[in-house]
Each structure stands twice: as structure tokens, then as C-alpha cells.
């Protein structure tokens, strides 16, 4: 019984930072479509206080508060891209796992295009020749 009391005390909320108390941190939206959109977005947003986890995956209280922001904004009719832009405005590209195309990230897209060209050239050169 002592054990039970001790464990329940550990798990109890209200110990400050232990858990987010934001209403929508761990509550799904009633509208399944809005929830799906929020869930998809949360999986692409990076938790700021954890190592490398999305806010959907993280137990950190701050991730919970961010989930609340995402769900409440999407419930209020904002599009996922608007919510993402709102966070990027505050935290920069770091907060999103989907890098945009800008001055800091263009090589991420330019290089794969180069890889495609290279792959094409190699295949044409290597395979264009007929076997003797």
C-alpha cells in the first residue's frame, strides 16, 4: 500500500513541469479530419527541449503545450501550413522536420537533382553501349 501511494504520488499531475496541463495536449480533436491534419503536422514538428523527437512522440511538457497550440489552431480553422509558418516564424527552420526551400536549405534539393542527373548520365553512358 505504501508502494501504491508512493507511485501514485510520482504519477500525480500538478508537480510543475512534470506534465503539460494544456487541454488539447493529450486530447484528440472531435473532428477526425481536423485531428488527422493536426496529427500529421505534429509528426513533422520538432520538440524543442528533447533530443530529436517530434512533438507527437515526446512526453516533454513543452511538446504537450505545442500540441495544444497545433490542435487549437487547426480547430480554429487555420491550415497546417499556417500553423507551421507561425512556429517557424518563432523558432526558425529548426522546428520543422520538413525543410523549406530557402537560402539555408537549397542544397538539400539541388544536390538530389544533381544525383538524378548523375544517375542518368551514368546509366546512359554505361548502358547506352551495346555489348559486343
Amino acid at each position, binding site marked *: 500500500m505504501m508502494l501504491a501511494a508512493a507511485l501514485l504520488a510520482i504519477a500525480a499531475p500538478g508537480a*510543475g*513541469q512534470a506534465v503539460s*496541463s494544456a487541454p488539447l495536449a493529450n486530447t484528440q480533436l472531435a473532428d477526425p479530419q481536423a485531428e488527422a491534419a493536426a496529427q500529421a503536422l505534429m509528426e513533422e514538428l520538432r520538440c*524543442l*527541449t528533447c533530443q530529436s523527437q517530434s512533438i507527437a512522440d515526446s512526453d516533454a511538457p513543452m511538446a504537450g503545450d505545442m500540441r495544444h497550440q497545433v490542435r487549437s489552431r487547426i480547430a480554429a480553422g487555420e491550415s497546417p501550413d499556417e500553423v507551421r509558418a507561425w*512556429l517557424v516564424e*518563432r523558432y*526558425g527552420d529548426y522546428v520543422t522536420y520538413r525543410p523549406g526551400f530557402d537560402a539555408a536549405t537549397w542544397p538539400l534539393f539541388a544536390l538530389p537533382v544533381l544525383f538524378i542527373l548523375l544517375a542518368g548520365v551514368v546509366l546512359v553512358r554505361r548502358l547506352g553501349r551495346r555489348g559486343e
Partner: protein
Amino acid sequence: MKRLWLILPFALLVLFLGLATYQLTQPKDEFVRSTMIGKPLPAFDLPGATDEAPRVASGMFADGKPRLLNVWATWCVPCIAEAPQLMELADRGVPIVGVAIRDEPEAIAKFLETYGDPYEAVARDDIAELQLAVGSSGVPETFVIDGKGVIRYQHIGDIRESDVDALYAEWEQAQ
């Protein structure tokens, strides 16, 4: 042309080694900086430290006086460490608004009684909405807000003795 192709792997390796060596010698930046510097403080309206205290809202930052916005919490240990430095800044005439993250009125009262109260006002931010709005990613953090309500500077982590003058200078500059 053929020779060039043969040297390519070596060249790529050298690039990687250069990058890896450079990063090994760099201190690892653990913090995510706010990108709200130079932008206006987002509007907010939060409950005060106790249920009786007046609400704290963004309007108070538009009276022409620069202020510090201190993001803190009673459950945060470094916040205890920075309390004397905040008192010193308050004594030097810097108005400081506190934002207590995920906190309780009783805990706030007890903390201020124990470690001193440098604050002009304390807002309770139970779901970190203001913290997220200003781009803060942890506690404690301190922002300098100028008289027009524009965010001018972000200090991450607890304010050490050595940070006080710099922070004071940033505040003066925001006049």
C-alpha cells in the same frame, strides 16, 4: 576526365573530414534561439500571479518604457540561481515582467518570499502560450522589450553575475 573521377571519392572524404573536425572543435549549441528578435511582442492577456492580482497583458509594454520579460518557473532550479541577479537589475531601475510557466499561485508566492521579488508584475502562463509566442524554448530565458513593444534581445539560460552588465546595456540601448 577519368582521373578526375577517380579522385572524387578522396575529395569528398576530405570535405567530410574538414566538416567533422570543425564541428568536433565547436562547442555544441544546445539552445534553439528565438527568431522573433526585431519583431513586435505578440499580444497576450494572462492571469496574474494570484487569482486576486490584476491580469497581465501586452498593453503594458506600449507605454514607451523598455522592459525585461523574464520567462521562469518555481520548479526550475537555475531560476533560483538567477534570482539575485534579477534583484540587482531591478535595483538598478530595470522594470521586469515575469512569466511563470506551468505554475501555481501558492508556489509563486512562496518563491518570491524566499528569493526576493524583482517583478513589476508576474503573469501565469499555464500552457506556455506566451512562451511559445515569443519563441522561447526553455526556462529561464530573458527578453529585452523596447518602449514600442518590439523584442530586442534574448538571453538564454540563467543570468550569471557576468551577464548583468550586458543585459543592463541591452536594456539601456532599447530606450
